Every structure is written in C-alpha cells, then in structure tokens.
C-alpha cells in the first residue's frame, strides 16, 4: 500500500488522495503571447524527475503541495500552499 502524508491529517493510503497536476507558474494572460499561453494551457514536459504537484486529501478536502520523484515514485515532502516546505 502506498502511503502519502497530508500536512493536516497525517499518513494515509494514497487511495484517500487525488492528484491535480503539476504546480506551474501562470504567465500574465494580458502580457503573454498566444504561443506562450497555449504552451501553458496545453503542454507538459512529461519528463521523469522531482516535481511539485497539487494533491488533495479527499475526505477532508485538504489541498496541499507534494514534492514527488516521478521517476522513482517516491513522495519526498508535502506542505500546505503558502507555508514553507
């Protein structure tokens, strides 16, 4: 069983969590070119490695950030948005 640690609720089976995509900086919609905006909306690098991702502990609806090595499938750290990892 894979275990993930919610910053609020503690360690739980990964079945209690939902993945919601990589944490990415949104370009300024008014300043970005169409190419830059389309790249932000549609493109992902898909390269394995250490990524920051949005996850949600679904029973409590707690959203947080997980740093995960997608190559080794290891969760390195988790923290609430706005807090320091």
């Amino acid at each position, binding site marked *: 069983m894979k275990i993930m640690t919610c910053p*609020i*609720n503690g360690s*739980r*089976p990964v*079945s*209690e969590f939902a993945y919601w995509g990589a944490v990415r900086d949104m370009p300024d919609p008014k300043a970005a070119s169409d190419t830059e905006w389309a790249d932000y909306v549609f493109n992902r690098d898909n390269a394995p490695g250490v990524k920051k991702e949005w996850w949600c*502990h679904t*029973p*409590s609806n707690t959203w947080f950030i997980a740093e995960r090595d997608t190559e080794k499938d290891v969760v390195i750290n988790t923290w609430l948005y706005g807090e320091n990892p």
Partner: protein
Amino acid sequence: MNAFTAPVPVSPLAEAVAATRTQPVGVSFVDHSLNPRFGCKGKAAAAWLSGLGLAIPAGANRWLPLPEGGLIARLGNTEFLVEGSAAVVERLHGSAAPAGVAVVLRQDAAIELSGSGLPCLLLQTCNVNFAALNLAESPVVLTSMAGVGVTVIPGAGSYRIWCDGTYGAALWETLHEVAAG
C-alpha cells in the same frame, strides 16, 4: 385555502434504517442525522465563533464538548462543525457571517456506533488505526470508511460518524453488512 405546512425533516438514513431493523450482533447503530447542526469555514471563522461565545478547539482536527450539550469540531485549520442544542444552532444560523466566514450547509448523515464488535468493524472498513489514538487529545479523524469520506469522533464507548447525506444510506447498509458478516 390550504394552510402552509412546513416540511417534516426526514433523515437521509430513514429508508436504510427501516430496511435494516435488526441490529447486527456486537454493533449498535443509531441515526443522529436530524440533530441540529451548523457548519462554517474561513480564515475568520474561529474568531467569529469565539466572539459568539463558543470555545474553539486549539488545534486542527480536535473537538470540544459544548456546555449545553453537543460539540464543536475543528475540521482542519479553518472549518468548524457544531452539533448541539437547537438554541445554540439557531443562534449561529441567525448570526450574520462576516467577511472571511462562509456558512457550510450541513445535511449530513450522522451515525453513532457502539458495541464490542466496533473495533473489528472499523478495522475492516477504515484505513485509520483508531486503537492507536489518544482519546485525551479529543481527536477528530477525517478519512475514508467503506469508500465514503467521513468525519469520525472516537469515544471511549461509542464513535460518532458524519458523512455526506447522499452517501449515508450506502454507508449505513455497508457497515450493517460487514458487521453482520
């Protein structure tokens, strides 16, 4: 002319309760869904409730009893569930929530479980080892039970469980089947 008649509240568990009249051996089920209840969340929720005279659990996922009966549970850092006397709950519903507080509609299915078979039932349906919890810390556990997201307050003799009312019948019937198995 017909006089207006207020709708009679019906528990989301009413049909499930009627269909499972026989209690399984070792586990007792009680439906508390119609208890008066209030929910709110937001960065200003703790200060607002405190200003209304309620004691606030100091940490996330903790609960406190209310002097008038009932309880206040802190769900995460900034969400609260109050269940207690009609007077307390009506006072909260009647108080205008300030900026930074959002009232949460609570139409929960609320169940109380007790009995000697309860530890076994929890082990079969839930991911949390409740036996390892320190009840002196008044823990609130938000987890998944039989696939349904639940809020659980474990007690010495009985456990209180809340879940989305639309999942209540499924949870009630599933717990009944597991307990009877």
